[in-house]
């Protein structure tokens, strides 16, 4: 699949997820190597009212979404892949008033399971604010959850 097709598919996937629209998540980069999403800073996701630092839950949502959608980088066809588990290690708090970027890649794809890993960062990807690993289940072609969603997300890029 071409890189522009991956980008298009990732954007369509993201736009179908209502909570991600509420947070304002955007695709920053999508290639065969992995996916980067951007979580814009906003007062509504503050978790520490004294410092303005955003809530860990917003970073978890960013990383769950990034890991989940990074499956389009490796799968020839769109498949719904529910999360089996996700682990986040916080290296240091995010700085307030700055966007957070989430990068994820699929490092092992089996017929049933996709193993993903990634990290969240602000200015410098080599100084992550969090490391993440997540495991996803492949539902296969039987349960692609409504042919309509698949058609919407794959678009013309089949």
């Amino acid at each position, binding site marked *: 699949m071409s890189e522009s097709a991956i980008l298009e598919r990732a954007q369509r996937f993201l736009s179908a997820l209502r909570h991600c629209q509420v947070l304002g998540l955007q695709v920053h980069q999508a290639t065969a190597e992995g996916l980067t999403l951007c979580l814009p800073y906003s007062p*509504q*996701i503050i978790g520490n009212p004294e410092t303005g630092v955003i809530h860990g*839950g*917003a970073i978890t949502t960013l990383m769950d979404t990034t890991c989940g959608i990074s499956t389009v980088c490796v799968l020839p066809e769109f498949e719904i892949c*529910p999360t089996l588990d996700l682990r986040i290690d916080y290296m240091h708090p995010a700085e307030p008033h700055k966007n957070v970027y989430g990068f994820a890649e699929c490092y092992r794809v089996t017929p049933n399971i996709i193993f993903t890993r990634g990290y969240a960062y602000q200015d410098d990807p080599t100084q992550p604010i969090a490391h993440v690993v997540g495991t996803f289940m492949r539902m296969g072609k039987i349960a692609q959850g409504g042919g309509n*969603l698949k058609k919407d997300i794959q678009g013309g890029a089949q």
Partner: protein
Amino acid sequence: MSLDLNQCVRDAHERNDYDKLISLFPYASLLGIECLRMGDDMVFRLPANKDNIGNPVLPAIHGGVIAGFMEHSAMLHLLMFMEIPHLPKIIDFSIDYLRAGHYRDTFVRCQVWRQGRRVANVAITAWQTNQTEPIATARAHFKVDEP
């Protein structure tokens, strides 16, 4: 802004009204988290909210929302019962998704397995229709000593 968290927690316990405590945290208000006092225990509720949907097909709540709800419940639980004078800081968080979180009310209960001087370990369970059929279990470590 300097908060007297202990005072807010005491007020909430006395009035059995946790709305003010919740409203201190914009992210908790965004999701719509509520506290329900059950005797000596606390159950947290996340009412069904279209803005929390992450799977449009089922429809189901976004896995990140379930995780954020569980993380925040654990933090509030520590604040309410462990007499910590400042905000516990998350160190790590690990969640297992057991069933789809459908578009309906979700509940969370927390169990502190160990509170040391510096670190607390909390187990968190989330369910919808039946507490014996959890939709997710999670565990988290929080730093609880001085910031």
